[in-house]
């Protein structure tokens, strides 16, 4: 791949007495999950290319508490939240970008009343703003004419009404954006939310990710794009089951990075 990634930490910034432009909240999946780490790195390459002065918390980052809260463990959630807020406030963080819609939602909506008030952006929104400011450009060549469908992550779409930023990015690739019958407000869940990612599904006659993959297959895409590490896992599993080798599952950040040969 490309040369060494520049990933400064908040602690390093602090030592030089500077503030980064934005904090990149990597999230647990982005830090530990093999597939999601590739998304993290693709996003960092784009940040490096656009010369964004960003920092990560590194080993000072901890789970936002989202899966605990959605499971019903409010205590654990608030313990995590308060701990994270202490760290973030100590570094005087003002702006956060994250590639995980679950972290995005929790940081944006549930941290403020616990004392953590930040401007929080999803990475697709942030990338879009980089394009608009002319700090990043997209070469469409690689994906020109490719059929790409976008799977709306629930915690980005319905939960926070972000539908257009990821689509705008895909369209900049000169790709053919095709919509599934259930998209945007009506997007079907991948099956991972509400802490389902960490448990087996209840008894039923089908897995949700298979249902969603079948919906995607109806529009015969070459690529299923998404903006969530958990959706990515679920859709990748679904594709393995139903359309191995025919469809690729990629994060929007990976698409942009790929197009730029990063």
């Amino acid at each position, binding site marked *: 791949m490309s040369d060494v990634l520049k990933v400064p930490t908040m602690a390093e910034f602090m030592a030089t007495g500077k503030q980064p432009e934005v904090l990149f909240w990597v999230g647990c999946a982005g*830090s530990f999950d093999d597939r999601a780490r590739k998304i993290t*790195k693709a996003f960092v390459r784009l940040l490096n290319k656009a010369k964004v002065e960003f920092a990560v918390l590194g080993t000072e980052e901890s789970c936002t508490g989202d899966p605990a809260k959605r499971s019903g463990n409010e205590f654990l959630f608030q313990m995590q939240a308060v701990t994270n807020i202490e760290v973030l406030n100590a570094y005087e963080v003002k702006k956060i970008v994250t590639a995980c819609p679950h972290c995005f939602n929790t940081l944006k909506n549930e941290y403020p009343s616990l004392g953590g008030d930040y401007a929080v952006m999803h990475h697709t929104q942030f990338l879009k703003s980089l394009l608009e400011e002319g700090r990043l450009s997209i070469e469409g060549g690689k994906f020109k004419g490719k059929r790409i469908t976008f799977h709306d992550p629930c915690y980005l779409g319905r939960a926070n009404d972000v539908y257009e930023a990821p689509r705008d990015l895909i369209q900049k690739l000169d790709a053919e954006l095709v919509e599934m019958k259930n998209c945007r407000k009506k997007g079907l869940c991948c099956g991972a939310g*509400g802490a389902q*990612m960490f448990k087996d599904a209840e008894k039923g006659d089908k897995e949700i990710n298979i249902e969603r993959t079948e919906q995607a297959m109806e529009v015969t895409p070459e690529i299923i794009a998404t903006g969530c590490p958990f959706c990515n896992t679920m859709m990748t599993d679904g594709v393995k089951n139903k359309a191995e080798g025919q469809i690729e599952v990629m994060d929007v950040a990976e698409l942009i990075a790929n197009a730029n040969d990063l």
Partner: protein
Amino acid sequence: MEFLPNLIFAILLFTGIGFFARNISKLKRNIDLGKDVDTSDQTKIRWKNMARIALGQSKMVRRPIAGILHIVVYVGFVVINIEVLEIIIDGLFGTHRIFSGIGSLYGVLIGTFEILAALVFVAVIIFWFRRNVVKIQRFMKSEMKGWPKLDGNLILYFEIVLMGLFIIMNATDVEFQSTNSGNIISQFFAPMFEGYNVHLIERVAWWMHIVGILVFLNYLYYSKHLHILLAFPNTYYGSVKPKGYFNNLEAVTNEVKLMMDPNIDPFATTEEDASIPDKFGASDVQDLNWVQLLNAYTCTECGRCTSECPANQTGKKLSPRKIMMDTRDRLVEVGNNIDTNKGVFVPDGKQLLGDYITNEELWACTSCNACVEACPISIDPLSIILEMRRYLVMEQSAAPMELNTMMSNIENNGAPWPYNQMDRLNWKND
């Protein structure tokens, strides 16, 4: 004896309205059993939501067929009710078509009512076919067997009969027909009654129509049909936050702050234990907040939520509609318990959790908000599911095993998986 009909009318009217008012006050008392929740913020947005979603039916038309038919019935219901005002005045004072004095406008008015009545009639028949012949899936789910199915049909029969009576009443009103103004629909039915005692038929239809309306009004309380009234407050009090926001329990915040505060004396006796609730989460209806209880009464069991639910679509037991129906049915049971025990609730050994809603249903939810988005009148089944999960986890430690593992991972190493926090940045060097 001359005033006997007026007297009978007045008695019927005031009994009907009085009985309804009594039930509404019961309904209000039941809703007030819920916990308090602050809804005083964002009044502008709340009014806008009510105007757009309830009055303007904006979310109904997302399903165009049902949506447009529903608007027909809704507009018909609201507009034709102007006629009820005339019927009440006529009934109380022994007049006949008191508003006809306004001249040609009266014909326009009644003509409009007749057209709407005919449209409502047709729409309701299509609704009946959708439920009973086409058997649209969302009306066939397991929670719709028995009373809920009958309830749905009874409401349709009520409307068919009421609209029919309205047209018959006009068709047999010789005087009204002779003006030949406003009888747009009824003129075609008038010849059918030639040779019969039209005056008698007109009186019977008139009385049955008003009695039917009063019976229907009182039927509301016992049916799923309360949405015609409650949709308005429900859309007003519905959430004005992003759907992804789940409330932070204040009692927990206080506890967590105490735990995190290094200056606090751990052995000090806290005097203000009032802030700590007797229960975290919800196991019964009294643990929910009043907006959630209002939601339950407002639900008209259309099933749009359930048909959008990913868990339900893939054969799991969870149905958001059933969550709302169960909450309402339990609330009614609790209310009846209070009535029979002279104003106090006597524990009946039952609760919402377990006796109505099972753990299996609760754990099938992906919290995707599809149900909340689908509801045409701002009902939030997800908040009830979460509140009950809170009870299961914080009061009963009854989470599925894998979730307990996930949570202890977060507690111990700050991630849902068993990885060391010190390895968080390792991806950099992959």
